[in-house]
């Protein structure tokens, strides 16, 4: 059964009945370090002590600050997520996603997708 949806300044977050946590960024979201920390804090509460795969919809994100990128790629995120499938869409989100994977080297297995279906399929391998 899906959990209730939690809303932060930049995203809506819930745990799906498939065991995958969804993080859906707002259109034109400008994500700062504090925003990223709030998102991860919410994910931590939702996961019930179990590391879970994340579906992160960043297809219409506008800005992902450098320190936010580093935070999301770091140890804190790795503790709560087994993997992250990042959905990109707009040219800006594709660039942000590519730089995130290419420069920040996330500790959690991460991959860019343009299709939610493909992303969920890939995440199934990371369900524990």
């Amino acid at each position, binding site marked *: 059964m899906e959990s209730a949806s939690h809303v932060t300044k930049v995203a809506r977050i819930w745990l799906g009945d498939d065991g995958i946590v969804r993080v859906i960024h707002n259109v034109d979201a400008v994500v700062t370090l504090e925003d990223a920390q709030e998102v991860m804090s919410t994910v931590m509460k939702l996961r019930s002590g179990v590391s879970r795969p994340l579906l992160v919809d960043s297809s219409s994100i*506008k800005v992902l600050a450098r320190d936010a990128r580093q935070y999301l790629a770091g140890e804190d995120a790795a503790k709560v997520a087994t993997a992250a499938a990042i959905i990109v869409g*707009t*040219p*800006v989100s594709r*660039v*942000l996603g590519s*730089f995130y994977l290419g420069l920040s080297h996330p500790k959690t297995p991460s991959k860019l997708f343009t299709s939610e279906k493909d992303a969920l399929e890939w995440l199934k391998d990371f369900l524990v």
Partner: protein
Amino acid sequence: MSPGSDEHGDEEARYAELLSVIFSFAAGDLSARGNLSGDDTSLDGITAGINILGEELEAYIAKIDRSENVLRGAARYSRSLIEGGLDPMLVVDMDGRITDVNEAATRMTGLPRDQLIGSHFPEPSARAQLATAVAETLANGAVRNLAMVIKDAAGTQTEVLCNTSLLHDGHGHVSGVLAVARDIAELRRAERAEEIARHDGLTDLYNHRAFYSLLDDEISRSNRSGRPISLLMLDIDHFKVVNDTHGHPAGDVVLRLLSRILVTESRAIDRVCRYGGEEFVVIMPETNASAATKLGERLRAAVERTPFDIGNAYVSVTISIGVATYPRHVDSLDGLVVAADSALYSAKRGGRNRVNGYARRSDIIAEPSS
């Protein structure tokens, strides 16, 4: 103007803005950023990429600045250590050329810093010694206590001990040699003063004080090794007659000549000391009573057969010798001296010009030799 040309004009303006951001980067302003229009075009994507590039470059430059600060701090620290040292220090490159010196080095050489840096060392003798030290350091990693003589610009020589070590660059490769010299004039003066304090001014033999120190060392060594020590105590027979007949200066000549004979006839390991007046002692390490008595006899015979040239005449001199051995006869330093003195006394009483072994009760260890 048509809508199409407006769109074209917007795009031109955004390209111009992006170029402006790129030019700012090139000019060193990494804080410049492009604006995202939010129109989901490729140009927005490129703008986002360039903005990230700016952020990453800023972070990279900040990291380099921090590293440079650390390096500057390390350089200042090294400089303080070098300049704060009282000992002259030289840094030499792989070709033996001086690349750095401290204030103490300029003082010792009497040469200004700019004359030393870049040179192989202006003074030829020191240059050769420095080249040797550098070559040895590059071969073996370090040189310890290499004795060198540095001549300053005024020709004054300073004796130094030089220590060296390898210097490495940031990649760990050997880049040169650090040489630290210590002026040992004070040390040498102290050593000379110590030598003077340990030697008798007339004969240059070890004096009474040094005798006890040397004997103490030998007793300790004997205790460790289990090997015996013998002590000869000897006295010039009728020395008062020499002084009364020929004067005290002649007596001094006799003492000096006798000292020379004792040193010449003794073994290299023996220590000949002037005990006082016309009394002498010879410490014989690792020597038993029998061997010591034979060596004593050699000394006695050498003195007996030598005419002593006192300038205007030759005089004949004989000596009496007492022999005692540790630990066979006694078990202490003082006991050994007393025993040798006792044996000497017996030699005198027995008729002089003889070697007499220490006798403990009925334990006669040697017969008088003559």
